[in-house]
């Protein structure tokens, strides 16, 4: 569904992405993992066309995405830190997004708006919301238009346990509907029952991209967090 070939992106001297090639296919739920600053967000933003790679190509459903914009109607994106026009109320923001994405979905999916209890605070201004509530708005917007691809950048950071459980259930539900889901997170224990593949990056390079089951087998661990820890420490042991 998404095929990226040899993407390189430099920010000044820093190579945020170094010759990364990847194929994400439909129906998978992929965890993008790696230490801070390894290029996960840059990769996501390149897929969304928010960052323009220096070289390489990205195809979405066999179509080159450079300078295209319609393909984004099939992606739901939840940013790491969602910020919205301060003077707008939640209701305004949701109406605006519905207005912008008119046509991409006939009946918007407001399940998350309901289960997060956003209905009761529709008239609150975005500037007065707490970080967690803003995160809820971002999540609700990402799932609202029934997209084929969901890109979630640190979805549960800042959410209370109850809401983050609700979000997880929603992600599982969408996965069963055959959607492609990309998640970055540092809370590995949460990802265990969500993901099917692991995509691990370090310093802008792809280290491995494997099925979760294969990874667990290779490391002999049942928990994702343990498996990753083993790989990370293994890499460091090699260095010294």
């Amino acid at each position: 569904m998404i095929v990226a070939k040899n993407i390189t992106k430099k920010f000044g001297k820093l190579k945020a992405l170094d010759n990364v090639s990847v194929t994400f296919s439909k129906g998978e739920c992929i965890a993008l993992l790696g230490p801070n600053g390894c290029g996960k967000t840059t990769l996501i933003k390149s897929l969304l066309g928010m960052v323009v790679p220096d070289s390489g190509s990205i195809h979405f459903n066999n179509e080159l995405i450079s300078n295209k914009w319609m393909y984004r109607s099939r992606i739901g994106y939840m940013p790491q830190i969602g910020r919205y026009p301060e003077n707008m109320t939640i209701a305004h923001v949701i109406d605006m997004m519905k207005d912008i994405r008119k046509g991409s979905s006939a009946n918007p999916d407001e399940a998350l708006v309901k289960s997060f209890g956003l209905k009761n605070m529709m008239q609150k201004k975005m500037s007065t919301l707490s970080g967690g509530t803003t995160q809820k708005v971002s999540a609700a917007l990402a799932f609202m238009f029934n997209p084929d691809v969901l890109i979630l950048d640190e979805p549960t950071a800042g959410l209370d346990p109850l809401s983050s459980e609700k979000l997880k259930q929603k992600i599982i539900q969408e996965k069963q509907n055959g959607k492609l889901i990309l998640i970055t997170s540092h809370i590995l224990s949460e990802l265990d029952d969500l993901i099917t593949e692991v995509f691990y990056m370090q310093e802008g390079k792809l280290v491995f991209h494997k099925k979760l089951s294969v990874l667990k087998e290779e490391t002999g661990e049942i928990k994702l967090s343990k498996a990753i820890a083993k790989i990370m420490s293994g890499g460091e042991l090699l260095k010294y």
Partner: protein
Amino acid sequence: MKKLLKYVIVDIIQNKIVLIYTFLLLVISFSVFNLENSSAKGLLSLLNIILIIVPLICIIFSTIYIYNSSEFIELLVSQPLKRRTIWLSIFSGLSSSLSLAFFIGAGIPILLYHADATGFTMIAMGLFLTIVFVSISMLAAGLTRDKAKGIGLSILLWLFFSLIFDALVLFFLFQFQDYPLEKIMVLFSFLNPIDLSRIQILLQMDISALMGYTGAIFREFFGNTTGILLSFLGLFIWIIFPLLISLKKFKRKDL
């Protein structure tokens, strides 16, 4: 484009600065017209105020607005929208709301006290200056990611166009006073939108004494009608050119 424009305008109007700006212009205009006993004199005083205040407020407000809505722009870019549409919507939103503010704040008093060709030219020039400086601010904000640098750059640009430019021209004139500089001076005036609008209004008012050196040459060179048409053209270029460069930058920008 229309959808986005609506949201940008609503957002700007809810921002109290634009209302304060309108009110400030209203107070200035009415007090100037009431202080002077002839409305023509009032118009002239208002001209000088407009030539300073309108570019200053427009460039600084727009630059800050663009930086403050960077997250909003980021949100929009991740949606199925063309970058071109986003950028042009912000430009149109800023220029239409600031133009409206100018029209209410200065246009209506001018129409009340001095509704003739000169008054109309003055309103037109105020609107042009508003849009030109919004366009320049889009460029300033597009050039650098750093908010402080961007605002500094736009203040510097304003200072350049309203003060430094004239000083440079004068300096140049004195240095080369032995040479015939008329044609070059006319060319120079096209390099400064504030100069262009000043000349435009003074050509309309027909007060050569106040026209300054460039203005006098301008009239001699082009005559009134051609002069007015040409300076309109110049102002148009001043709107289009910075906007296009900033648009080109924005299309390649990493967010």
